[in-house]
């Protein structure tokens, strides 16, 4: 089997601190692998556990530093790593990003069976890239996958989660599967894996390498653009509840009871 796992480098949003004016303090914010992508990688490794001749290629688009996150995936057991890195890729929206990834895959991993992605990235949170990637490659997809139930050399049986149900589905390769956070715990890398990965050569590709027209990538190739950004204002006038804990709790319960019955006929 031949699996591609898409990984995104994101700022650790748990770490983000804001100034009084509401701007982000970027200093000291660590970059991590998007947590949802960790689950995608774990599933690829889980398939490789059963079929050891499986080839896993981890793929990312981003700055040169993103090589580090690709190496951490190599340390865990991925076989190949490709970084799409080019100043011309910058400013891409989900359409241009997924089109770029599709070109990299067509050029360098044309005989893939399965593409695994995290459903969301914690920074952008659009959840659009996996479906859009499947669209550009014109292959089948199952999104919002909660678990991989079974798999063989033909395809997979997956459980998808929607608002009101869990749906078991079968899908054949080639396909895109995007995963939610699941019950499996992504493995840690071994010391040997880490040492091996240190010297691993990540394949870095640019726009020329993937034969993509400049008008289709980055900001230029993005059909959407940000026209304005602003800090949201939704402040309310607040009243402090103070005193001993017993007094606070008294006020709180009284408040909740009053508000609860307000407006009831």
């Amino acid at each position, binding site marked *: 089997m031949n699996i591609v796992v898409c990984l995104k480098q994101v700022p650790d*949003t*748990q770490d*983000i601190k*804001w100034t009084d004016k509401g*701007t*982000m303090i970027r200093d000291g914010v660590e970059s991590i692998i998007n*947590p949802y992508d960790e689950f995608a990688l774990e599933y690829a490794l889980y398939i490789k556990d059963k079929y050891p001749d499986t080839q896993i290629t981890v793929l990312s688009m981003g700055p040169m530093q993103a090589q580090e996150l690709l190496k951490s995936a190599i340390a865990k057991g991925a076989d190949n790593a490709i970084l799409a890195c080019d100043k011309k890729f910058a400013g891409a929206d*989900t*359409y241009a990003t*997924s*089109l770029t990834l599709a070109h990299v895959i067509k050029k360098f991993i044309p005989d893939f069976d399965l593409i695994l992605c995290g459903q969301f990235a914690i*920074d952008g*949170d659009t*959840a*659009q*890239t996996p*479906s*859009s990637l*499947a*669209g*550009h490659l014109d292959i*089948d997809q*199952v*999104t*919002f996958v909660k678990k991989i139930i079974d798999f063989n050399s033909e395809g997979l049986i997956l459980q998808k*989660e929607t*608002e*009101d*149900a*869990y*749906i*078991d*589905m*079968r*899908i054949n390769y080639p396909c895109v599967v995007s995963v939610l*956070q699941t019950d499996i715990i992504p493995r840690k890398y071994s010391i040997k894996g880490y040492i091996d990965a240190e010297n691993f050569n990540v394949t870095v590709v640019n726009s020329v390498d993937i034969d993509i027209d400049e008008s289709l990538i980055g900001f230029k190739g*993005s*059909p*959407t*653009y*940000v*026209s304005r*950004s*602003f800090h*949201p204002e*939704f*402040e*309310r*006038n607040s*009243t*402090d*509840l*103070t005193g001993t804990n017993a007094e606070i*709790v008294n006020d*709180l*319960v009284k*408040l*909740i009871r009053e508000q*609860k019955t307000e*407006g009831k006929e």
Partner: protein
Amino acid sequence: MSLTVLALLNRNGSLESVALELIDKAKKFYNNEINVILPVADIDTTAIVSQLEQAGADKIYVVKNKKLAKYSTNHYKMAVLEVLEKINPDIFLIGATANGRDLAPRIASALGVGLTADCTELSINEDGKLAATRPTFGGSLMATILSKKTPQMATVRPNVFKRPQMILDNKAILEEITVDFPKHIDTVEELNYIPKTLQTSSIADADILFAAGRGIKTKENFKMLSDIAQVMGGKVAASRALVDMGFCSNQIQVGQTGKTVTPKIYVACGISGAIQHIEGMKGAQTIIAINSDKDAPIFKVADYKIVGDLDEILPELLHKVKRF
């Protein structure tokens, strides 16, 4: 010139209410015709059509094929594209439900157009373009996004816009379109459909929500909060941080990647107040925030502030409400 809304059905045959919210919102910012695409199997659509009419639809394209009885990415994509090609709308809006979010990027990539996800505000700018606003980049900012191509596509989560006022006498023009599909359209097959229990899917309807964030610290405290919620006739909810810590399922998550809620009372316990979270609860009538950090951003949106230690306040509160 038209704005088109996609109307999808739930598995039980009822309409996803976000479609009505989108039609109503569109009425407020768009002056031309509001169309609806309704993909269905060969069923009686009278009741659904009248809901769409009463929300304000001007024209409804009912796309029929028995393969559309339940959602399938490829069948729905083909059906919707067929209508879009015919009516060529300026703007195309889709509800950000699990199926809507699965489908929208497929349609956008097939048409080669952009798609703005999870908008919290829609309007028309001075150039007559759709201005779609959403929280972005780590939640620090709101961004207003424009599209260079048409249709200008956007998705919106359920409950972001208000339930419409019904326009009882509004009638829409109906057009029925029968689509044909090739025999082998995809390899995806549904094997088993397991409905979720009602209990886990109802924070959006609760009058009182007691929501916990990372500051709740322990599972014992979270349990105590659930007990308090139960005694007071409310429900317990959580921030994304707590879901990520494995305390609870994302079914009760409030915020940009969870649910949007508008309860009468929202008690935020140990929630710092990232914008993604606030986006999901800012519509609550009364917001009470409890946090040990007096500078926590959640306090900015709170009607009532309590700076205090949940380890002490929760047992006291549980004790108090249990005595009633």
